[in-house]
């Protein structure tokens, strides 16, 4: 595996916001780049409109799939109250995307693509190549809204440049 100190990203929101999908794309992109990736979440009752969180960690070798509290480099929340609940996971000077979330709510007309917009915003901070992101989007959205998701992703990615 490629040499890299573990990168920790916590995605959160509520059921139906595409939290798990966003984390999946991120995981696929990191895997394509040659890193060891772990991604964890819970399914079942928790998914029925309740809190949803997905932890993504990648680097040369990842042990725990859960990010230890206070160690997340990035906290990507799709729902303000969930940010409040989980902000204790963020390390000092860790990055959250609450401004981008407000921005997304204006720029992204269809709420279904807010998740990929924020993913784009996150991608601008990470060392993963655009090619790998595009390939990951293609795998995750094969035949289903790929164009729209690509567009939202790039919009989010460019927003911060």
């Amino acid at each position, binding site marked *: 595996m490629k040499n890299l100190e573990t990168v920790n990203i916590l995605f959160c929101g509520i059921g139906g916001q595409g939290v798990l999908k966003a984390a*999946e794309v991120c995981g696929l992109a990191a895997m394509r780049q040659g890193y060891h990736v772990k991604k964890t979440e819970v*399914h079942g009752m928790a998914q029925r409109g309740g809190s949803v969180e997905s932890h993504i960690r990648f680097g040369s070798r990842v*042990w725990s799939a859960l990010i230890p509290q206070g160690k997340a480099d990035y906290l990507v929340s799709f729902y303000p109250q969930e940010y409040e609940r989980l902000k204790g996971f963020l390390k000092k000077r860790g990055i959250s995307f609450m401004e981008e979330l407000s921005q997304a709510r204006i720029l992204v007309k269809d709420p279904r693509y807010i998740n990929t917009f924020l993913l784009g915003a996150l991608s601008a901070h990470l060392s993963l190549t655009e090619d790998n992101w595009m390939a990951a989007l293609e795998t995750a959205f094969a035949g289903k809204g790929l164009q729209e998701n690509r567009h939202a992703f790039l919009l989010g990615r460019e927003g911060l440049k």
Partner: protein
Amino acid sequence: MEHAAGDRFEFLSGNEALAQGAYEAGLKVACAYPGTPSSEILEFLSRFKEVDSQWSVNEKVAFEVALAASIAGVRSLYASKQVGLNVAMDPLMTSAYTGVGAGFVVVSCDDPGIHSSQNEQDTRLFAKVAKVPLLEPSSPSEAKEFIQQAFQISEAFDTPVIVRMTTRISHTKENVAVGHRTECAVKEFKTDIAKYVMVPRNAYRKHIELEKKLIKLQAFSEKTSLNKVEPGTKSLGFLTAGVAYLYAKEMYPQASFLKLGMSFPFPEKKARGFAKKVKRLFVVEELEPFLEEQLSMRGIRAKAKHPSFRVGELRPEFLPQIVAGRPKGKELPASRKPVMCPGCLHRSVFWVLKKLKMTVTGDIGCYTLGALSPLESLHTCVCMGAGVTFFEGFRRAGLKNVVGVIGDSTFVHSGITGLVNLAYNKTKGVLIILDNGTTAMTGSQPHPAVGLTLGGEPTRQLDLKEVCLACGADNVDIIDPYDVRRAEALIRERMQQDALSVIIARSACRLLDRARAAIPVWRKENCKKCYLCLGIDCPAIRKTEEGLVAIDSAVCTGCNLCVEVCAFGALLKNEES
């Protein structure tokens, strides 16, 4: 991570990796009843045509079909969540006596933290009770590797093998090396009455054999690479297994480790040797003090977690607290409560039951959410099938205004016997089957009353109405749950009769049928701001900051339950639809 050249990597969950491993090991028959966090194992297996995979009616059935397939000569697998194994306990206990034919693996997925279960039981204790070997992978990659070893152990020692997964393995994804399937020759079935007919004389002999087998398994446990020492600093050592190993490794990477992949039978000598080599030894495990007891009964000294850590999921940041011998600190803030989907049929039924001030004996499924505030119209939930049998117990204790509710999949799983018991013992009253035509909570799996198999093929459809009549119900009505007035009138009518009545409230699960009707119209001038409409707990309706009522058009399905609830005509059906 090290892998052979030419490996192809896929991003797989623990459940998927385990299924892939079983497939590569030549698995032929796989049986399960869905349950979080285990469901994806069979869903993943169903893509392989070489594997005969099925959703079984319940876990007991699944276990027996899979065990028998093994006895008849092909590698087989059973999978369920932790509480599912309770249902299959009967055949599990005796399968340790009969042993197997070809390899037979029992996969049980525990749910530490109770994310989606009714209790937090630890499958590892069952291995000891049933006297069968236990493997505990830590990660998806290990799940794939261990399942392949489990088949070999099963065949080498003529025993079922339990592979214990937990939510954080089942639902964690990582890079997993994917390989090719190796076919196994079918082992010809030979009549062997002494082995497969557990009458007292045979069973007694088999029990003696089983005790001898456990001694051999213990010797295997001492030498297998599943139980390995990872040398590190001598000042600190961890004896650990499952996800706990990863958390300890995360927080104390320099420490020495004895990582147990096979934790029962327990490798005593290995543990004793490891204990001698390190200055301070900690035993770290999730849930029950299983390893801790294995050590203490043998007089091997190790520091263990404070008992407060026996409850709930372990997390990496708990490790320093455990090492310091402290009790569990404050928990994470409570997560947002789950809620029934907008337009869900269960909401309508629970609204009627609430209006009728019924005591409701409940069961397991999405409809268990009917217990949550503000609906609070489901009053018991213990296990699968108990919506029916608790109803009978409540009636026998003299309660009158009581109904039982059970989902369609749950009814087929273990409600039918309860209904037979109701009829046989002359119980009267109303049982409601909440029939959304799927096993919704676990991810929309089909079941016998849906008429589709795991692979999506049409099959003989179980007719719920005919079943209920055959069980002895005096009458069975099928109703549209959205017609709440008719539902209410019918429940009232049936409650007054001296009869055993079943009402099937039937409408498709909103996760499967996404059809929408026009959303209701809110008339500000009629609204008395009583907010009764919020009492149905629908995600599509809310109070605005100005105290007005707002319907979210992106979420509302147009079921019009809120229209029924509003007494002042402030919410009106959209007649354009």
